């Protein structure tokens, strides 16, 4: 039996192999849910720089990557991390200090851009955004766009409906496709070939994966192929899209994984407080990111008490009556 469809590898190796300086990257999840944090922290430890990040609404992962100076360009709809940081703190600072370039879209526009990429289309139309500054104000200038073949020449475009007023629309707004070099998502279950089963909301993870040249999947549970094949209706991502599979229990911590654990509001608050002060932030990074070898040792520092506190109740999928800051 060949094992060419066994894509399991250590996370360190997957990041080394697929995430390079200046890669165009997208990460899955939404604000404080299912961010691929084990991978995010590994990218930071490997000191990968000049990344071009695509996201719709991201928080936990995005702000760590920006805080560590890994991102130079960002295309995004929303940078927030729940109650702890309604606007991501390192994100806001980096934009205000002109340390990163940001191109703003809406959530639907970003989701459609991934979808267009996943379908092999140059763009998709929507009726969102006419008359707004999202359409007219550009974060990436024409010359930046022209000089980089991986960035589309126009941010957005408006076209007359070629079918007249069909479906009651005189115009459509076109959003350009995204095809990232690498997408990283964290899921509840995957098998060695890379088939994935996500529980709860999928956000835009499926479109992000299918649009991407390479895909790293980190998973709570690495399960037998037979287990996933018994209920194919519950699998959203077939293995053909996936390049690497890494077993990473608690791999989204401190963000949440439905059915497994909640977000750690205490940790997110601690991060938010540290993020406001350069010295405190450096101390935070030294302790929790640079001072550990991998996600497992990071979780040891976090401690069993926090991990027990966020453990999901099997009935609801979250930690019932958890003290939330």
């Amino acid at each position: 039996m060949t094992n060419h469809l066994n894509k399991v590898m250590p996370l360190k190796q997957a990041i080394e192999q697929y995430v390079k300086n200046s890669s165009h990257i997208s990460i899955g999840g939404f604000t404080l849910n299912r961010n691929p944090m084990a991978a995010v922290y590994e990218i930071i430890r490997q000191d990968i720089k000049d990344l071009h990040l695509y996201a719709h609404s991201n928080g936990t992962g995005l702000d760590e990557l920006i805080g560590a100076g890994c991102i130079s360009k960002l295309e995004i709809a929303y940078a927030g991390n729940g109650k702890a940081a309604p606007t991501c703190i390192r994100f806001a600072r980096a934009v205000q200090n002109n340390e990163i370039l940001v191109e703003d879209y809406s959530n639907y526009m970003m989701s459609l851009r991934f979808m267009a990429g996943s379908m092999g289309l140059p763009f998709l139309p929507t009726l969102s955004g006419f008359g707004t500054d999202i359409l007219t104000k550009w974060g990436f200038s024409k010359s930046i766009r022209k000089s980089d073949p991986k960035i589309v020449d126009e941010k957005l475009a408006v076209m007359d409906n070629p079918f007249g007023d069909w479906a009651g629309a005189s115009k459509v707004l076109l959003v350009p496709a995204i095809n990232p070099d690498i997408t990283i998502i964290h899921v509840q279950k995957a098998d060695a070939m890379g088939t994935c089963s996500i529980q709860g909301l999928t956000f835009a993870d499926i479109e992000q994966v299918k649009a991407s040249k390479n895909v790293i999947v980190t998973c709570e549970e690495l399960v037998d192929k037979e287990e996933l094949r018994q209920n194919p209706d519950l699998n959203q991502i077939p293995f053909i899209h996936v390049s690497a599979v890494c077993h990473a229990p608690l791999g989204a911590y401190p963000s949440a994984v439905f059915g497994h654990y909640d977000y750690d509001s205490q940790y997110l608050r601690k991060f938010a407080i540290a993020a406001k002060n350069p010295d405190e932030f450096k101390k935070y990074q030294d302790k929790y990111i640079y001072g550990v070898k991998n996600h497992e040792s990071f979780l040891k520092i976090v401690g069993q008490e926090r991990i027990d506190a966020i453990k999901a109740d099997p009935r609801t999928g979250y930690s019932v009556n958890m003290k939330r800051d």
Partner: protein
Amino acid sequence: MKNHQPYTPREIMTIMAAREIKNGDIVFSGTGISMLAAMAAKNINAPDSVIFFETGAIDSLLEELPFAVADPRIMYWAAANSKLTDAFATMQNPITGKKVIAILGAAQIDMYGNLNTTCIGDYSSPDIRFSGSGGGCDVASFVPRCVAFMQHEKRKFVKKLDYLTSPGQLKGNNTRQAAGLRPGGVSVVVTNLGLMRFDKDSGKMYLDKFYPDITPEKILENTGFPMDVSRATLAVPPTETELKILREHCDPQRLILG
């Protein structure tokens, strides 16, 4: 501001917004006070309204208040857990979109109900950067009725937005439809002082209701643009029943009511 009323500004705002929700509406909700207004409506005046999130969860049980639209609390006992493209399609689709009422917040609003959630100062080098559109621009583009929650201050009710994130009536007088948008956008603004709506023809904001102890003059003092107050009447304050349900059923821990 001294408050001699048997309710807090947050409580009257929540009840005023809840009253905008009709039975059978699909309520697009964010977190915080907008979520609470949606829950209050469901418990008081619109038991058959459905709460819906841009992340794709619809009619979630909400045994606990979620703190984010990606909170696992919205995934439990939902009618369906889907995804962003589905959620926004539901609003862009005129059949289901027509039934949607949305609740939004913003850093700035102008007299045409356009919203800024992106930045203060020049976009290319902002003084203050906010989270950005999220689904706000999409919702304001698609949804026929939107409630905007605002603190009523001059620096928030501005002549010109620093950045137009989410479209209202654009420049009034049908410019919204001319730009390519369907009718919709912010239709009512609920603040700590009163309730504003928009003139059907000019698209301009006017004062509809002022709260007990608040005068139209005070509202004008806190508004950064001229506003018609000639149609304004005194708001019916929250009833004892409304307050009791809000306090005892919707937010007993006062996580949002404070």
